[in-house]
């Protein structure tokens, strides 16, 4: 299997995630789309690690997974805090910081 196929699949997943972040307004789904983009980057990293026969890329992928887990924890904490304050769970309505 050519490694180009893996990279094309990674590009496809990354663009799907990027489009999803732009389209969706629910912060939960935006977090999910961020996960998609990080996973696409992971797939590219592992494919390049295979191309070089060097496991450094796999270590990088594992670190990316750690960072993604941190992002999920803090993001979900923020969403729960927003929900507790009875604010709308919608990134278009949450504009008190003038975003």
């Amino acid at each position: 299997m050519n490694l180009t196929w893996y990279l094309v699949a990674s590009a496809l997943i990354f663009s799907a995630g990027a489009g999803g972040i732009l389209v969706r307004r629910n912060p939960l789904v935006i977090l999910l789309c961020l996960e998609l983009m990080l996973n696409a980057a992971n797939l590219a990293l592992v494919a390049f690690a295979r191309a070089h026969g060097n496991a450094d890329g796999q270590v990088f992928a594992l670190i990316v997974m750690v960072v993604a887990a941190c992002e999920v924890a803090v993001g979900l904490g923020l969403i729960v805090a927003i929900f507790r304050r009875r604010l709308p769970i919608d990134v278009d309505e949450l504009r008190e910081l003038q975003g």
Partner: protein
Amino acid sequence: MAEVIFFIAAIGAVAGALGTVLLRNAFHSVLSLVCHLIALAALFLLLRAEFVAAAQVIVYAGAVMVLYVFVVAYIGGGDRPLAGPAGPGLKVLSALFAGVLFAELTIALVGSGLSALESEGAPYEPGFGSPSQIGGLFLTKFLIAFEIASILLLVAAVGAVILARRRSGLEDPREVSVADVMRGRHGTLTDAPPETMLEAGGPPRR
């Protein structure tokens, strides 16, 4: 054989990604992402990354997705879409942006002319991607990254607990918005002088 498995897994991964983006219900999006992650783990296995694939299934598809499912169930994403549709103009523009991004990435990858990309990769050595090799790298070459990652996890865990804990210090949590607090319409704990050391340190018990 590898081709068949690759195409099954890749189609599963891309379909899971599209489902995550397109499904209206947040809960269905989460389940779609689980399918995507498992298909991606199969791709990792094809790339001889056994340990990354195992970590993907256990940590991501297991632990992180359970967190997502709990939060979706808590805020009630099940019965109705939490947010209405975006404007049609924005949707078309976003889809166009995603398509252009994909075209650009593909051109950059295919046009890079890297000879390694046209092959199946470097010759396979026994032990490549095994837990012992990854563990050895983590404890020798990438020790600092490993330690920083553990500190980051600790900080994120503490931050998540502080963000999501129940606050009872505000006057009426139903009507308080961030802007009102900033303008000082609603008293916070700091307005009233603390009666005891306990109140000064935390929210009063009511």
